[in-house]
């Protein structure tokens, strides 16, 4: 088995002379959760449509477990389960009957498997109700169940957290992590909000105006580098005294008093212990230090800039 689950090679898409996807290349490893982030209209859904063969590629190729979606569609798509854009189902059928429809489409999908995925996504209680009456969150879950039915090695979810409440979101996150870690399934999740998917992804690809502008390793970015300047909130007992003391230090810092017990400052990570020592030595008690910005988010905003839809 190859270690690469999916590979996009110089993928471009033109619709009516408008270049919607521009020369996008990246790889997704087995068992990896890959986040696909970009503002509205960046081209996430279009890229996903090409991955699953709903749209033809203008240039380039997409290989799924080594098989081209263009020339080897059946073999390639067998490895893929997906929700594209919205989790649409037949509204007049029950959840269960919908899943039976999809089970019949891929030979070898058993009744037991249907029951298994229903349990996995926690829909046992409503599975015999008509989908027309489902909430968006319930449909999202049914969409995931549908995508997992034939045990794909790649799961593609377009905005899966759309419409989920915080606990539902957390559940899906945990569930996706488990799939990746225990069953070696590769997962591609798209979102326009970094914060929603950052927690579950191993790597994040940032797309803007149809170009892939960065691929970041989440783990590496999670910790601040020593030389990174970041903003910190420091919770103390005497904010004014703390500011006065810090202002008096040799390489004077910019310190702002937020309220009686909170100050804010922008410093390098390696300076943090030094400052704390200074405060404690002068009988200013420190209760909490908080880095207020996360570096990946900073990078994301730097990369994306303003969300301009072209």
């Amino acid at each position: 088995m190859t270690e690469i689950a999916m590979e996009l090679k110089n993928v471009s898409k033109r619709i009516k002379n408008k270049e919607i996807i521009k020369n996008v290349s990246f790889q997704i490893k087995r068992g990896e959760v890959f986040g696909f982030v970009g503002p509205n209209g960046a081209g996430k859904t279009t890229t996903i449509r090409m991955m699953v063969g709903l749209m033809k590629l203008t240039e380039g190729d997409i290989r799924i477990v080594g098989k081209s979606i263009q020339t080897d569609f059946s073999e390639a798509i067998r490895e893929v389960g997906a929700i594209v854009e919205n989790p649409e189902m037949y509204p007049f059928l029950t959840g269960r009957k919908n899943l039976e429809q999809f089970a019949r489409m891929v030979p070898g999908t058993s009744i037991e498997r249907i029951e298994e995925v229903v349990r996995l996504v926690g829909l046992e209680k409503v599975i015999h109700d008509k989908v027309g009456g489902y909430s968006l969150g319930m449909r999202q879950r049914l969409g995931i169940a549908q995508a997992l039915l034939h045990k794909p090695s790649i799961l593609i979810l377009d905005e899966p957290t759309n419409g989920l409440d915080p606990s539902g979101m957390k559940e899906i996150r945990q569930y996706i992590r488990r799939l990746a870690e225990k069953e070696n399934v590769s997962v591609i999740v798209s979102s326009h909000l970094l914060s929603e998917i950052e927690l579950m992804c191993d790597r994040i690809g940032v797309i803007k105006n149809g170009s892939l502008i960065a691929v970041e390793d989440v783990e590496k970015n999670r910790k601040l580098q020593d030389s990174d300047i970041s903003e910190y909130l420091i919770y103390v007992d005497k904010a004014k005294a703390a500011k006065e003391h810090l202002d008096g230090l040799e390489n004077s810092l910019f310190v702002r008093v937020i309220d009686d017990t909170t100050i804010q400052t922008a410093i390098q990570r390696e300076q943090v212990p030094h400052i704390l020592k200074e405060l404690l030595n002068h009988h200013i008690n420190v209760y909490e230090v908080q880095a207020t910005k996360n570096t990946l988010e900073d990078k994301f905003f730097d990369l994306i800039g303003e969300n301009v839809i072209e």
Partner: protein
Amino acid sequence: MSNLDQLVKNEFIKLHHYKSTWAMYIFIAVLLVGSALITRFFVDQSLMINETFQEGLAEAYQSMGVEIPAYDMWAFLSENISLINLIIIFTIVVAAKIISNEYKWGTIKLLLIRPAGRGTVLTSKYITVLLFSVVLIIYTIILSMLIGLIFFGIDAWNPIILDNMGSSYTEISMIAAIGKDVLFYLVPLIVIATLSFMVAILFKGSAMAIAASLTVYIAAPIITLMVSKYEISKYLLTAHLNLRSIFEGAPLVEETSFGFSVTILIIYYLVFMVISWLTFQKRDVTGH
């Protein structure tokens, strides 16, 4: 291609979850019972026989020494074979909806990201449309026989009648005559259903498909007559849909032979099929 049967099963299940599908079955039953009641209690049956046996048919019976049959189950059945006209209209609707609904619900995406492939998915839908119309025809025949039997009884199990076989009246068994009528209806049914299917694919919606197909089917004689003075009229689809009257020697456009009509119909049919399959296989599935 291995799971085409499963895909057809899926389509049948979906189709029979629509209320409108059940309304079709019920509508046919109501029409049959209604027509049986009217024929039995409000119409003089000998009058009906006289009406049918105009235009020399009665004389033909006399000259060939065949007894004019009484009004029984068979007569009721052969009269109601014309309900296939209604079934053609139902089939137009089903052919349009079976495509457009998937676009309307967005489920087309889920259908096309399975190993079966687009061609097989489309084939399963097409087979379902034709199979459904066959089911409706068989349903109509069986129900007509039952109702006919209850209201009018039966004279003979397979009576001999006279039927127009192109050049002249010929002796033919009742069952064969009905079979022949059904076959003549199947031709426009298949061609028009395929037309509706194609237009639905092209427009991803049902309104245009239903409107266009209904117009072609119902207004066929009018359309043909309107352009009949031009040479091209004999190449129009509408001139050849009533294959039965062409067979019986009364074509809409003069001097079109049976063979010519069949050729034209086959050409139209093939064009509809090729356009449908090529469009469906090549086109991007987008959000709009």
